[in-house]
């Protein structure tokens, strides 16, 4: 089958979860990853730098108009929504907050689903709200593959539980097993 991209949504507790996944991916992992982590609008861009130091992959904050490249991880900048275009470039907007969040996981997932269709993997990690659940439904509408972190392994279980309750999650995995599973799907 093969997948062309992975989108990840995380909120409260997300930094540790992302660290576990990103550091679990081998240096030859080439499927691009695009992720939205909820942040305070006033926070700076430390997440990309922090994760980049720990990984063989190139991890950076997304720029508008940027072409999505293999072996790259793109992170939504604080206070912007991140969208995927159908020509596989990234764009940013400052539209209204969705689920009290900017960046919104739903916006990333919904636009990525249209761009990548059944070649997309969507992952919902730890968090304290429902963001991403609509995005999961959209990914399944286009026959993509969906994963939720198991609520028991999540620092905050609300967000993965909400995603699971949509009935559109293909695989529920403990945090420690997500990276290995992605390798089995993509490499």
């Amino acid at each position, binding site marked *: 089958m093969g997948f062309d991209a992975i989108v990840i949504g995380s909120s409260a507790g997300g930094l540790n979860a992302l660290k576990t996944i990103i550091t679990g991916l081998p240096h030859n992992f080439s499927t691009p990853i695009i992720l939205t982590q909820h942040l305070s609008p006033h926070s700076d861009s430390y997440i990309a730098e922090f994760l980049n130091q720990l990984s063989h992959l190139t991890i950076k904050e997304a720029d508008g*108009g940027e072409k999505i490249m293999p072996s790259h991880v793109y992170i939504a*900048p604080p206070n912007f929504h991140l969208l995927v275009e159908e020509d596989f470039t990234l764009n940013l907007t400052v*539209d209204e907050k969705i689920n009290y969040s900017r960046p919104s996981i739903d916006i990333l997932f919904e636009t990525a689903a249209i761009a990548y269709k059944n070649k997309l993997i969507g992952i919902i990690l730890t968090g304290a709200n429902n963001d991403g659940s609509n995005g999961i439904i959209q990914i399944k509408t286009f026959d993509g593959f969906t994963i939720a972190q198991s609520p028991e392994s999540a620092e905050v279980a609300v967000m993965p539980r909400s995603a699971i309750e949509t009935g559109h999650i293909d695989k529920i995995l403990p945090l420690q097993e997500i990276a290995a599973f992605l390798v089995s799907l993509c490499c």
Partner: protein
Amino acid sequence: MQSPERQTNIQNHELELFLELIYRVFGYDFRNYNKAHVKRRILHRINNLELGSISELQHKVLHEAGYFDLILRDLSINVTEMYRDPGFYKSMREEVIPILRTYPYIKIWHAGCATGEEVYSFAILLQEEGLYERAQIYATDFNQIVLEIAKKAIYPVSKIKEYTRNYQESGGKKSFSDYYVARYDSVIFDQSLKKNIVFAEHNLVTDSVFAEVNLIICRNVLIYFNKELQNKVVRLFTESLIKGGFLGLGSKENLMFTDVFDQYQTIDLKEKIYKKLVITKK
């Protein structure tokens, strides 16, 4: 009647046709906006109105009153806040104001001002720096509805806590509450801030130069445009600026990737403040 199934995608040729019609019939040109954003907004509108397709929406927009206004609202960029990115205003105070001070009279253009929060933020800054009295400020947007809100200078009181924090971080010199009066759940900003501001309809996509100015502020508008339209708009800005004039963009808008970059000097890379060169390279 049963409501139609929720729509999850729009075919690109249908979306392009819809935008083409909007342009031909109403004169608003969204054809070079980034597609993912436009598609998402239109999809939302179709589902919100419980329509079955973009062609049903198209029919209503063309033939029934009120529907075009909804589309205009969906596609205009209305989200703004006071002193968004305090560092931008701090840099303006420190790097740009001292040079503007050397002119007897200054003209400032806020392009795509939406509901006006950034216009008043800058007006306060000009007052504090003693430059307001010699400034003429143009605040423009293509959407008349948001301009009406901007003219009123009335904003929800719920935002004031965040705006006050932003104001202080931006290097504000007074107490922020000196500039507004709170009434019920709103605040109204001081009338003296409006004196030298002209609010006017102007469309960056379809209208041309209307004044020669010392400073243009246009933040978080270009990110909605494709490369071609970004270039067109920054060329318009370049024509509108005096030699040695300044351009302030949003934190994620980089002049470096446009055709006019060689006509500017970077004043603040992080805050995206540029100065048009006095001698332009040809």
